[in-house]
């Protein structure tokens, strides 16, 4: 019996080792491609006076602290106001969000708040309802804590000149990165995710991801694809796969930088990671088979799609790998089957397997010119277990969702904007 257990654990560790190796190779390929490869041209230099009518949707649940900033930045945008409507989607707010939005609406005719106090709460539900009342051909989505640069909407819309592009995704940059150690880390993490990962995937014609904010999609395509699944928390990832599986594309625009508020509290971050993981793994279970069977995607896109789908599942299997190696240790059989495999396992878990994502962060930091923040990268080591644990919890949540067929409840990320910031925003109105 013990021998069978040992054999099973060893096989498990070997498979995990191969998976980690493949992910490490992927990190290196993306990093090298971004550092030295030719980058894809954008559409922003196209001069097009025939801009479409667009609807900017901003899902909000108790956002009184931050909504001034995004609305003021959108009011100042250079997109023609006769071709623009801003729809803040008040989703069951219990604070002063409704009153503030109505006040804005009385001053600006293109701001049309959509108050919803019935039906299930949640970003995916709010957007599904709001799209029904939106008049724009293109739906732009921002989260409520974002600050939109003046010319961003025009640059974003130009991507839709390409009829294959069904969605566009911009780059998210934390605005409060100097607040504490956590925000500094999140800033670097975002930098690696967008500057290297997304950009390389777009450039290599793989699966760049629509991220749910600082993004836009075609309304008709969105409705034809059945809108967002209310049971899926990661509505953005779900839309990405729907788009690709139906023969459309997502374009990533590294130039479209938008500024967000990163969580300043580990506890809030834990909830956010767990929710992302849960939603992402729901998408994994839903699209794993359709992705493999799809006739719209090239083999390399399917492979990248699989890597993307499993990205929040791998930490769970790595955690299991830790327990597997702990059991093997106490069973006195750590060398796996030979010294070579033992060395390779060490190599996978503790050297390149872990180092490859670090290399990707370093690459992003070089490209972004973050000379000094590079030095805090080793501290990511301390968030490693944190991410491993909460991402794994999200995976377990997603499995339970499937077994019990339960409907997940959306938990909004707490905002950290200080009262003085809100007052400053009020003065700028």
């Amino acid at each position: 019996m013990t021998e069978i257990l040992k054999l099973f654990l060893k096989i498990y560790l070997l498979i995990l080792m191969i998976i980690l190796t493949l992910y490490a190779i992927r990190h290196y390929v993306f990093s090298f491609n971004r550092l030295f490869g030719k980058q894809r041209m954008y559409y922003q230099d196209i001069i097009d006076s025939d801009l479409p009518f667009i609807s900017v949707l901003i899902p909000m649940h108790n956002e009184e602290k931050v909504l001034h900033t995004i609305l003021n930045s959108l009011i100042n945008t250079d997109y023609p106001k006769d071709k623009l409507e801003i729809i803040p989607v008040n989703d069951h707010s219990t604070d002063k969000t409704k009153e503030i939005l109505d006040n804005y609406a009385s001053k600006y005719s293109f701001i049309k708040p959509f108050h919803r106090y019935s039906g299930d709460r949640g970003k995916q539900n709010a957007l599904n309802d709001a799209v029904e009342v939106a008049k724009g051909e293109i739906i732009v989505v921002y989260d409520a804590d974002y600050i939109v640069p003046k010319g961003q909407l025009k640059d974003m819309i130009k991507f839709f000149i390409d009829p294959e592009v069904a969605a566009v995704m911009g780059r998210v940059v934390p605005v409060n990165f100097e607040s504490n150690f956590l925000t500094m880390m999140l800033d670097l993490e975002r930098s690696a995710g967008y500057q290297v990962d997304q950009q390389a995937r777009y450039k290599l014609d793989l699966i760049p991801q629509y991220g749910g904010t600082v993004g836009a999609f075609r309304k008709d395509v969105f409705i034809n694809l059945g809108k967002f699944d209310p049971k899926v928390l990661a509505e953005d990832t779900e839309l990405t796969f729907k788009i690709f599986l139906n023969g459309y594309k997502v374009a990533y625009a590294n130039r479209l930088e938008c500024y967000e508020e990163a969580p300043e509290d580990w506890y809030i971050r834990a909830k956010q990671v767990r929710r992302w993981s849960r939603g992402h793994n729901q998408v994994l279970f839903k699209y794993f088979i359709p992705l493999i069977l799809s006739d719209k995607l090239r083999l390399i896109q399917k492979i990248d799609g699989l890597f993307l789908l499993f990205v929040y599942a791998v930490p769970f299997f790595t955690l299991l790998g830790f327990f597997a190696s702990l059991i093997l240790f106490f069973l006195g059989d750590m060398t796996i089957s030979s010294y070579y495999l033992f060395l390779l396992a060490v190599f996978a878990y503790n050297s390149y397997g872990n180092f490859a994502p670090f290399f990707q962060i370093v690459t992003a930091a070089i490209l972004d010119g973050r000379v000094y923040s590079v030095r805090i990268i080793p501290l990511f080591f301390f968030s490693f277990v944190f991410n491993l644990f909460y991402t794994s919890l999200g995976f377990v949540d997603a499995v339970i969702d499937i077994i019990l067929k339960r409907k997940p409840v959306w938990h909004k990320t707490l905002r950290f904007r200080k009262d003085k910031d809100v007052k400053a925003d009020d003065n700028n109105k």
Partner: protein
Amino acid sequence: MNFEKEFELMKKNLMKYIYYHRFGRRLHINLFFSILNFFIILILAFFLAFYKYDEINHFFISFLSKYFDEYVIENLFINFGFYTINLHYLIILGRFPNNFEILVSLLFISILGLLLFIYRRKILAFFMWYVFFSIPFIVSVFYFTFFKNYFPYTVREFSILYTLLQYGITVFFVFIIAVSISVISFSFWTTFTNIIFTFLLIFYIFLFGYLRYFVFLLVLNKMSYLYMANLFFTFGPSLDFLYFTSFYTLYISLLMKNIMRNSMLWKFVS
């Protein structure tokens, strides 16, 4: 007037003040120096792995053995087919924990855990590390309470595992450095500093590795086998990884100052 030349000159002057936007900038790779750098480090790793590692290992083991009254030096052969290396490791007396030690250790880890749990909201990342650290320890406590006689290791087995680990870490870290550092080799000077950095890193890996081996042996000798799982899982390769990334990122941040200043190292989009 040659407008093209004039334009290029103007562009170079402007680059001192107006830099490429980060969305599309990329580095101008110098293939000659990158390949040269890669192969020099790779040859160094190969030479170290197959021809010099055993000599260095013998030196350190003989040095460490002076600090123990009773010890045996044994051979560990790793056969690569074309070459076999003979590594040395130390065997000293280890000790099994008694019930009092197990109880005191368990109490200590529990009280620490309780304190960290109370303040977990503020130190969540650290608390998670504590949990990660305490899992092997608690399993160890359980194991030595109920199955002490079945514990499959002595200092001999532990030393073999450690020696193999250290060998893997040394060789593979040099390989990772070769891959990760060669690409930012733009000139003779950066190639030279990259190689010097690699040498210093290897020196540190050896120094740290054998110093840690010495501490581990002391723990197993003076304290007990109760801590062996933690020595392996908590203070093993993960610590190597921590200093490795620290040195690497520190070095990169020093290089970056030069990279950011030198506009000739950058390209834009195409």
